[in-house]
């Protein structure tokens, strides 16, 4: 297998090298990729959408349809992880362990029994390691600032690098950091499984809903200048605001997908204490 793989790799590489000889020179301003379509986007982005970051205006306005289906792909990937691991693999174990927080006593219960309704018991797994105080406190201090930065990245994507994808990933990473520094159950108390599963399609629906709203107001799908009559601004500012709405939808969908995939992989679908 290794020799066949090496032969295939060398042949493919030789073809690519042969093709690369014909490429335009490195960083050529007159290369075909930079001459036909992209000058239009660069020259008209400010006039059409008043968004200084060309990548954002291109992502959410000129190529909005593409981005909508990319968001759908991300949602589908989260759903596939859920179906593969949670539905077919996640079964409750027969015995459960509870730890009394104040005394540290562990209680083991057979199936069907229940603990007295009290705040002092926490559910633990077979392997329980005490969480480290310094890591716990440090992460608890850092998480609000990470989330604030993520919201800044989403909202300020118009005039600096950033946008829905990056901000959504950072928001998801803050919850993942909580799950790593404490355990998965603590993170699930903050962000329940049901909330994640509902918010993920809601993010896609915000994106598609913005497009449909434009359609209902009499213009094309995802043509944000139709929002001018709703928002009481001129059509160019309406496009800028439409991009922000779409970015928020993307941010929610990406954030929840990251959390969803992490929850399923780190606990193999059982939603116990995780890493």
């Amino acid at each position, binding site marked *: 297998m290794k020799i066949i793989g090496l032969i295939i790799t060398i042949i493919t590489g030789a073809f690519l090298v042969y093709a690369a000889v014909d490429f335009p020179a490195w960083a050529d301003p007159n290369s075909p990729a930079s001459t036909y379509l992209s000058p239009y986007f660069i020259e008209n982005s400010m006039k059409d959408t008043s968004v200084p970051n060309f990548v954002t205006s291109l992502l959410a306005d000129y190529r909005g349809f593409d981005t909508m289906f990319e968001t759908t792909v991300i949602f589908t990937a989260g759903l596939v992880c859920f179906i593969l691991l949670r539905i077919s693999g996640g079964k409750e174990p027969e015995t459960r362990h509870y730890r009394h927080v104040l005394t540290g006593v562990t209680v083991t219960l057979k199936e069907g029994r229940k603990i007295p309704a009290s705040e002092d018991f926490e559910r633990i797994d077979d392997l329980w390691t005490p969480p480290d105080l310094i890591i716990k406190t440090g992460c608890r201090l850092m998480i609000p600032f990470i989330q604030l930065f993520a919201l800044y990245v989403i909202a300020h994507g118009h005039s600096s*690098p950033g946008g829905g994808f*990056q901000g959504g*990933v950072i928001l998801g*990473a803050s919850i*993942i950091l909580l799950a790593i520094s404490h355990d998965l159950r603590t993170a699930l108390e903050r962000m329940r499984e049901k909330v994640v599963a509902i918010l993920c399609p809601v993010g896609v629906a915000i994106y598609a809903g913005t497009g449909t709203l434009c359609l209902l107001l009499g213009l094309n799908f995802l043509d944000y200048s139709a929002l001018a009559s709703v928002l009481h601004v001129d059509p160019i500012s309406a496009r800028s605001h439409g991009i922000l709405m779409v970015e928020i939808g993307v941010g929610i969908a990406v954030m929840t997908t990251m959390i969803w995939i*992490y929850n399923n*992989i*780190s*606990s193999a679908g059982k939603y116990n204490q*995780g890493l």
Partner: protein
Amino acid sequence: MFWQIDLAILTLVVVTAVGSLMVKDLLGAAILFGAYSFLMCLLWSIMGAVDVAFTEASVGAGVSSVFFVAAVFRTSRRTKD
């Protein structure tokens, strides 16, 4: 764009890519893959693709390393090659 920095980072990218495939421990492979992603992010910020570099720094070096570590934690670290 200085071609010296560019060439140095490109060499390091190839080294980390080969290293993450050669190392006989899956956790080591996951960490080296994170280093590979971060060097890739540096390369893109040199090329001026700030948005792509930002995405790779948060996605490639951050979240996907965590996914790899989580998957290795749930399976095994053992590998034959």
